[in-house]
């Protein structure tokens, strides 16, 4: 147990743990997909390509788990690999073997989850024994077939494998005639050079990074190392670092589209970084735009036209970049749907119902964050449909329906929204029964039948359930309350249609893309407001002694500079509570700083930005709105506009007034143009 806790030896890998989780998710998804495909085609000889893909995924999981010191997952994956090997060459997939693989997948997930949660992982022992027993039985049944299999399957690099080389040129090497061209020729003797990237070293020199698709059986010569060339230790069996192995010669007939080879895995945090940088660029562009406008007087009209046109072109291109970055975040919803299929196996077993799962629109793309957050709600809706919606086979046949129930999962894009549907052909919601229960619980007071909207309100109420005991399938995890809250927090909405006797349809509408940002939540008077974290330079407690007041303005001395203060309570007419120790948020660029005075700082949140595009509410100082966890809308401050406001509003006059009695800002005052221009 303690060996799995990530003790001394594996501490080094702690920083890779996030990568580990995301890679595990991906490979586990592959395992699930293939197992389901194998089960569907259980009567036929298992497809060799699938088995190979499955082995590869398990092998990778094993390797990764070993790297993070999660030995339980390592052992389970290893046992599963054995099981997969035994499948090779069989004329049909033995049920007990498939079952063992399904259990193994669940166990692997549990191991990874335990690592994520910091709890003790499940013991792999019983599972390993079970696989061994199953394999021994099968072997006794047909010794020869499985023996053959063991030899022919395995993780063999086919054809080529990808390797990285680095060459650092130097004057000494150049004097000996060793240069990058010569190195390139050497590498070409190993195989194909797939990429060459020159990078600046900290010393100012250059390092050339080559990626070479090296033919099997060829290796670099050690003597090359003396010529400034370096490479990772040579492992010809391509058991090198995971992810470095490229299987270039896959069968020509195999479909390429959905395989991992043309997919780049990107850490979501890096995309957020990129988005943030684009955001900064947008701000810089706006500043440029202002300068261009101001410059109109001092230039010839033609020259100014050119400048202005360039500025507008940059604005257009920036918008295209923003959209491009947003699109990178989009992933197909199909992956989530596939997980439902997996969950359905368990539900079908627990409930004893025959349920057919139907998909459409799996290719519909949606923001990655939305996909991740929608997994649990969708799972809950599907479980609900399976356990409450779909009737028992006998009831269905008695009602003249097919014995097998159907749950349909659909996705489609509708303008800038995504529509997801979970529909079953089950019994439908008994509005009267729900109404009765709601009255018992005091949720509604009228005796009238519930309108569709009210029905949804009732079934999404905390604690509402028409069953006296929560059952296995639908009662655990999140409730309908959480389903609706999650959808709403993503800027979406949930709807329900139900026809008694014919089925229920839950419809989820979600925005296609989300602007997500980290923001500080503030309180001004009794209003919560948000400010994007990226515009914040510093948060200071407001020290009344550091504030100088003149006329209607207040300025603060901050790091030897004079910073105008914006009292947001006064500006927005949200009266401050008396006796609150206020704070100053320093915002703006190096040239133009401003201090925003707020009452309280409530904390940092990830918020979803909604535009406030309507002209009725598009007011200066407000950049958008967001919905906080309590369902209230909060406005997002437009720091750039507020800083602009201080500059336009008699800032020069402020300085002049200050000059005589403020020696501590004299340095800044000698160059007022620099400060305020």
């Amino acid at each position, binding site marked *: 147990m303690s060996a799995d806790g990530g003790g001394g030896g594996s501490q080094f890998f702690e920083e890779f743990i996030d990568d580990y989780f995301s890679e595990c998710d991906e490979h586990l998804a592959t395992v699930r997909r293939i197992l389901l495909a194998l089960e569907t085609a259980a009567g036929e000889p298992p497809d060799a390509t699938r088995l190979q893909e499955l082995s590869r995924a398990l092998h990778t999981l094993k390797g990764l788990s070993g790297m993070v010191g999660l030995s339980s997952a390592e052992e389970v994956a290893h046992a599963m690999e054995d099981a997969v090997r035994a499948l090779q060459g069989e004329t049909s997939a033995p049920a007990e073997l498939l079952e063992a693989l399904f259990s193994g997948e669940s166990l692997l997930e549990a191991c990874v989850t335990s690592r994520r949660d910091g709890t003790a992982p499940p013991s792999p022992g019983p599972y390993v024994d079970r696989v061994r027993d199953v394999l021994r039985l099968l072997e006794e049944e047909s010794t020869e077939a499985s023996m053959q299999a063991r030899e022919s399957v395995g993780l063999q690099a086919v054809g080529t494998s990808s390797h990285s080389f680095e060459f650092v040129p130097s004057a000494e090497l150049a004097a000996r005639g060793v240069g990058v061209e010569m190195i390139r020729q050497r590498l070409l003797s190993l195989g194909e050079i797939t990429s060459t990237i020159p990078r600046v070293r900290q010393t100012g020199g250059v390092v050339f990074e080559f990626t070479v698709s090296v033919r099997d059986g060829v290796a670099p010569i050690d003597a090359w190392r003396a010529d400034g060339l370096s490479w990772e230790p040579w492992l010809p069996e391509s058991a090198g670092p995971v992810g470095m192995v490229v299987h270039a010669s896959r069968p020509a007939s195999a479909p390429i589209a959905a395989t991992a080879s043309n997919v780049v895995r990107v850490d979501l945090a890096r995309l957020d970084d990129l988005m943030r940088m684009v955001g900064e660029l947008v701000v810089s562009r706006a500043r440029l735009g202002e300068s261009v406008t101001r410059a109109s007087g001092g230039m010839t009209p033609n020259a100014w036209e050119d400048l202005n046109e360039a500025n507008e072109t940059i604005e257009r291109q920036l918008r295209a970049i923003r959209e491009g970055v947003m699109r990178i975040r989009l992933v197909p919803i199909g992956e989530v749907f596939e997980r439902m299929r997996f969950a359905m196996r368990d539900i079908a077993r627990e409930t004893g119902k025959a349920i057919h799962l139907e998909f459409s629109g799996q290719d519909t793309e949606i923001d990655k964050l939305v996909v991740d957050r929608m997994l649990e709600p969708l799972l809950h809706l599907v479980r609900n449909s399976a356990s409450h919606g779909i009737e028992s086979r006998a009831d269905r046949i008695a009602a003249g329906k097919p014995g097998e129930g159907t749950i349909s999962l659909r996705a489609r894009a509708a303008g800038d929204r995504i529509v997801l549907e979970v529909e079953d052909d089950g019994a439908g919601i008994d509005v009267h029964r729900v109404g009765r229960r709601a009255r018992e619980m005091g949720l509604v007071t009228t005796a009238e039948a519930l309108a569709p909207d009210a029905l949804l309100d009732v079934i999404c109420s905390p604690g509402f359930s028409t069953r006296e005991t929560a059952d296995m399938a639908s009662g655990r995890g999140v409730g309908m309350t959480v389903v609706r809250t999650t959808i709403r927090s993503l800027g979406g909405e949930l709807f329900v249609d139900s026809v008694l006797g014919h089925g229920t349809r839950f419809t989820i509408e979600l925005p296609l893309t989300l602007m997500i940002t980290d923001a500080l939540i503030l309180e001004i008077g009794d*209003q919560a407001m948000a400010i994007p974290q990226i515009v914040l330079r510093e948060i200071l407690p407001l020290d009344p002694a550091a504030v100088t007041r003149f006329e209607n303005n207040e300025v603060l001395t901050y790091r030897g500079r004079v910073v105008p203060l914006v009292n947001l309570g006064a500006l927005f007419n*949200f009266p401050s509570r008396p006796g609150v120790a206020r704070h100053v948020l320093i915002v703006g660029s190096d040239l133009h700083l401003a201090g925003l005075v707020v009452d309280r700082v409530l904390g940092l949140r990830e918020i979803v930005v909604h535009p406030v595009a*309507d002209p*009725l*509410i598009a007011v200066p100082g407000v950049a958008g*709105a967001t919905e906080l966890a309590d369902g*209230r809308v909060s*406005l997002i401050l437009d720091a750039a506009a507020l800083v602009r406001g201080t500059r336009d509003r008699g800032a020069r006059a402020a300085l002049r007034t200050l000059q005589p009695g403020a020696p501590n800002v004299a340095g800044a005052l000698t160059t007022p143009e620099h400060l305020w221009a």
Partner: protein
Amino acid sequence: MGVNASGAESYVLCELAGTTYALRSDDIEQLEMVGQLTPVPNAPAFVDGVTSVRGRVIPAISLRARFGFERQPHDLRSRLVIVRAEGRAVGLIVDNAREFAAIPEATIHPPPDGLSELSSRYLRGMAQLGERLVLILDVAELLRVTEAPSPSLAAAALSAEILPSIV
């Protein structure tokens, strides 16, 4: 969709300070209880704030303030009528909205000439519905951003009430 065979369009009737107004059903997206509103500083005076409806943040207008009546606290009967015009969605806060009515196009009269041009702008017309005089609102005009509410419309509404002879 809102027009039946006899050429009568479907309307939602709202009450506001004792006067009945009609909004075309086709302009209405949904009716909601008035929930939490977040005030928007420096927005026009008749904007009560923003609220989240179906994941969108939309402005909520006090029709009372828009027409120059006194605001009154929201109660259980108050409704947020979400209307859509020119791609915008805006909530209108009314005292209540309980009835639907079909109003034949032929019975709709233009606003009387006596109203100032400013007030008649918000009205598409008037119609007699049984005993009641109903003022039919022009949604697009209501949502137009103007500097100040127009008190004269309130006066017009009131005078229309005591002037049934005009229809």
